[in-house]
């Protein structure tokens, strides 16, 4: 009867009492420079320690520059935030993958990469995209800074049990249609609050055939549908990914195999989606739910929010998506900056030059992804095409560092949010897959990557 979520929840209950939230044990706590300083301050004020420094890992990703790492951080306030994390990790005995560490990277990229993220775990981080780790059959969700302090001090979190939602895919994704398009398709269907209060489990053929990178992309975007978390039951793909990873030597595959929803499990809600009918998607507005297939048109506004979004995006209704010209392309973020994403983009880029009116950058999700890509020669392909090849970090996904759009600039972005000003004040973001962003950078406008002439 129980769902995968029920099993994960039940196995982490420290205390249950009528009328109170359940106290859940947290197996892994990831921290970064932006949402942790006030939490450590709180610990000091309360005279408390980090209960399990051995289950707590930090890195710097949100505001670090993606340019030459041998130089100091030019932004004094950002530098202070990074230095504060350094001091806090030192004082409280927490392992930090610092700016020049070979393990540094976006927190949701390095967790899985190091094998810190494993099936059956509860994982939290002061970042909404923590849902990414659910790809391994873990219960992983974003928390605020007060909750970061709570977990640091107690290794537990009081939580109200969320509802469950099954997203059942039918059919396989067509060639050129990726996990990102599946995520955008689901959000387009259920809305940005379609899964509020729910934990999603993604199932079906299209999910089973995804690589771990693709599953992470899909689970990553769960929060964009309002979900508390997203998850996928672990299988051979998961076990193969984890084999030999640094923190995953103690494999318990027999237990991991039990982490599945029972066949008669009951979900509070079920959504079905025919993956075989999906196309590459492009967002046209200022919310991830404002999305249409690349073969479509900017819609007529149906409400004030859509009208406002069109004005902000400077788009006319009924414009062919493929006639929208871009100024920038960004391939990066915790959604789409893993090795497979860079391979997919490089395959499109190979043998081409980016359009003369476009500036484009690739920001690998981690130093390890960067090294792997360089071993495969992907950096050369991007370089030769005119892309900038950067150091790892969140970069222009949220523009906390110098990597931002200028007012009015239009960007094809592999990130997760197209909110007003997200990538820079006045910037206009269109969310797409890595292949679609690469193709748009070369053409200078959106184009259907399914028609691409690969060289």
């Amino acid at each position, binding site marked *: 009867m129980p769902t995968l979520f029920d099993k994960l929840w039940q196995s982490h209950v*420290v*205390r249950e009492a009528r*009328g*109170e*939230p359940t*106290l859940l*044990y947290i197996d892994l706590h990831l921290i970064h420079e*932006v*949402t942790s*300083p*006030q939490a450590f*301050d709180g610990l000091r004020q*309360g005279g*408390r320690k980090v*209960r399990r420094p051995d289950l707590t890992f930090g890195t710097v990703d*949100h*505001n670090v520059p993606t340019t030459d790492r041998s130089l100091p951080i030019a*932004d004094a*306030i*950002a530098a*202070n*935030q990074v230095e*504060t994390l350094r001091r806090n990790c030192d004082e409280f005995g927490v392992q930090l993958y610092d700016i020049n560490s070979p393990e540094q990277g976006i927190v949701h990229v390095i967790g899985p990469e190091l094998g810190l993220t494993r099936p059956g775990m509860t994982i939290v981080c*002061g*970042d*909404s995209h923590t849902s990414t780790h659910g790809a391994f059959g873990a219960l992983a969700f*974003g*928390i*605020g*800074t*007060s*909750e970061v*302090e*709570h977990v640091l*001090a*107690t*290794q*537990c979190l*009081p939580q*109200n049990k*969320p509802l469950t939602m099954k997203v059942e895919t039918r059919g396989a994704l067509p060639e050129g249609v990726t996990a990102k398009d599946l995520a955008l398709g689901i959000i387009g269907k259920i809305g*940005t*609050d379609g899964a*509020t*209060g729910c934990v999603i489990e993604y199932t079906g053929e299209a999910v089973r055939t995804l690589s771990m990178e693709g599953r992470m992309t899909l689970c990553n975007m769960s929060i964009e549908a*309002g979900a*508390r978390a997203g998850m996928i039951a672990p299988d051979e793909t998961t076990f193969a990914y984890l084999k030999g990873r640094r923190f995953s030597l103690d494999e318990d595959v027999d237990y991991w195999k039990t982490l599945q929803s029972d066949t008669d499990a009951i979900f509070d809600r079920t959504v079905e989606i025919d993956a075989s009918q999906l196309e590459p998607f492009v967002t046209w507005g200022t*919310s991830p739910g404002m999305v249409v297939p690349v073969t479509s048109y900017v819609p007529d506004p149906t409400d*004030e*929010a859509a009208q*406002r979004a069109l004005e902000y995006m400077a788009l006319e209704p009924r414009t062919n998506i493929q006639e929208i010209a871009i100024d920038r392309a960004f391939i990066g973020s915790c959604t789409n900056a893993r090795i497979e994403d860079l391979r997919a983009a490089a395959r499109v880029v190979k043998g081409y030059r980016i359009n003369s009116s476009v500036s484009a950058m690739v920001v690998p999700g981690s130093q390890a992804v960067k090294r792997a890509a360089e071993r495969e020669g992907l950096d050369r392909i991007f370089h030769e095409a005119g892309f900038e090849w950067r150091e790892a970090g969140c970069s222009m996904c*949220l*523009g*906390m560092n110098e990597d931002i759009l200028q007012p009015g600039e239009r960007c094809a972005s592999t990130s997760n*949010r197209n*909110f*007003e*000003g*997200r990538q820079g*004040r006045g910037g206009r973001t269109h969310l797409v897959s890595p292949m679609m962003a690469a193709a748009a950078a070369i053409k200078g406008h959106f184009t259907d990557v399914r028609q691409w002439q690969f060289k």
Partner: protein
Amino acid sequence: MKAFTKHTGLVAPLDRANVDTDQIIPKQFLKRIERTGFGEFLFYDWRSDPTFVLNQPRYKGASVLVAGKNFGCGSSREHAPWALGEFGFRAIVAPSFADIFANNCFKNGMLPITLTTEQVEEIMSRAQQHEGYELTVDLERQTIEDSRGLSILFVVSEFQRYCLLEGLDDIGLTLKHEDLIREYELSHG
């Protein structure tokens, strides 16, 4: 944590759905390492528009915000309720809230109140029509009332209500169960 019992204040109507935390407090202001100093940057980009609701003199000093559905969606940044609180807001009324944002509010003595779309629209239009429109939020009784006959019961979890009324430190509450935490750790290696 700051307690919340009963509050009466001026209502500001922000008639937009899906207000995300990037709008509430843009990223360039997240580099501070303190919990304070965010209020002046609340809705920074929108406030460059002189007609924006919080720039209108009649809403100066507002402490109750009424907004459209899915308020606080997006990033988990607790800087959003910090900025709202420092600006003067104590309660936010909307048809729905993003989960993490609502959690973050409760941790900061701020009350997110979920009402039906019709109820929110009614409050929104009253706030727009009547200058100086105020609401009284009573957490003890779980009511929201104005002086024009509006009286609505709202729902909030019993535990969150208790914590807010008492202004409890929930880390302290969890640490009371130290024995259970240790027991869990021992039995789970």
